[in-house]
């Protein structure tokens, strides 16, 4: 007997049937991103970071000294895993099924996020390319700034529903919409 496994996103029930035309303030739920947690062995922090930065199509999120999340929507998890395996002095583990990637953007994104995180997101304090672990809607998440009005949020899969609902509520006054996106 063969077993067929279907990919079903954890936010499927939150979004199916509610997807609307995107408003200026919009939250995208990325369907199948490749997310890897990478830890540099002691003394290899700088060389590992350099190697990670040179991976094409992957975005590096800072977590802690010598720890990153590598996110790719362009390549699948198997491709990224092979590339990470070539880096010496680092350990990588596939988190693609354990984390959910959200992208929020729009003219009011900072006003929405001000109700979700307790970190100053002014461009002087948190510039484009900056990223860090922080509490987002009471959940330990990773937040990265990808543009002047665009952020990426990575949350643990089991908390994604709670974070999603709270963010939609915080965005209601700004007509925040949400939908799945392939990348």
């Amino acid at each position, binding site marked *: 007997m063969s077993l067929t496994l279907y990919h079903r996103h954890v936010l499927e029930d939150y979004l199916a049937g509610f997807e609307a035309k995107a408003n200026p303030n919009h939250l995208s739920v990325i369907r199948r991103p490749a997310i890897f947690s990478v830890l540099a062995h002691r003394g290899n922090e700088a060389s590992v970071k350099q190697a990670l930065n040179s991976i094409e199509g992957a975005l590096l999120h800072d*977590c802690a000294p010598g720890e990153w999340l590598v996110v790719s929507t362009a390549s699948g998890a198997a491709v990224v895993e092979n590339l990470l395996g070539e880096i010496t002095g680092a350990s990588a583990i596939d988190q693609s099924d354990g984390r959910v990637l959200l992208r929020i953007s729009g003219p009011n994104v900072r006003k929405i996020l001000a109700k979700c995180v307790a970190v100053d997101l002014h461009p002087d304090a948190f510039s484009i390319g900056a990223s860090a672990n*922080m*509490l987002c809607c009471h959940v330990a998440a990773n937040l990265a700034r990808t543009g002047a009005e665009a952020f990426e949020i990575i949350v643990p899969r089991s908390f994604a529903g709670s974070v999603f609902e709270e963010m939609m509520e915080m965005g209601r006054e700004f007509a925040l919409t949400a939908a799945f996106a392939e990348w």
Partner: protein
Amino acid sequence: MASLITCPHCGTRPKEEFSIRGAALARPHPAASEEDWHAYVYLRENPKGRYQEYWHHAAGCRRWLIVDRDNVTHDVFSVTDAASIREPSE
């Protein structure tokens, strides 16, 4: 009163991101006497005033930090990564 701690890795964060794990005491030598170990494990001064504590940045970098603060006024004098003060003899 806002209780903000400036993590050396993550920047200024609210205390909700941290888990306070008690006085930052020097660990006795493995061959130290039973009295020394008993004191290290169980006995605490619980001072009023300036105090060094372990704070775990649970929702941030997940590093152990040593927060030097006054527990009456909540003046924070320094926040350092606990690994940076590890004894060289280790």
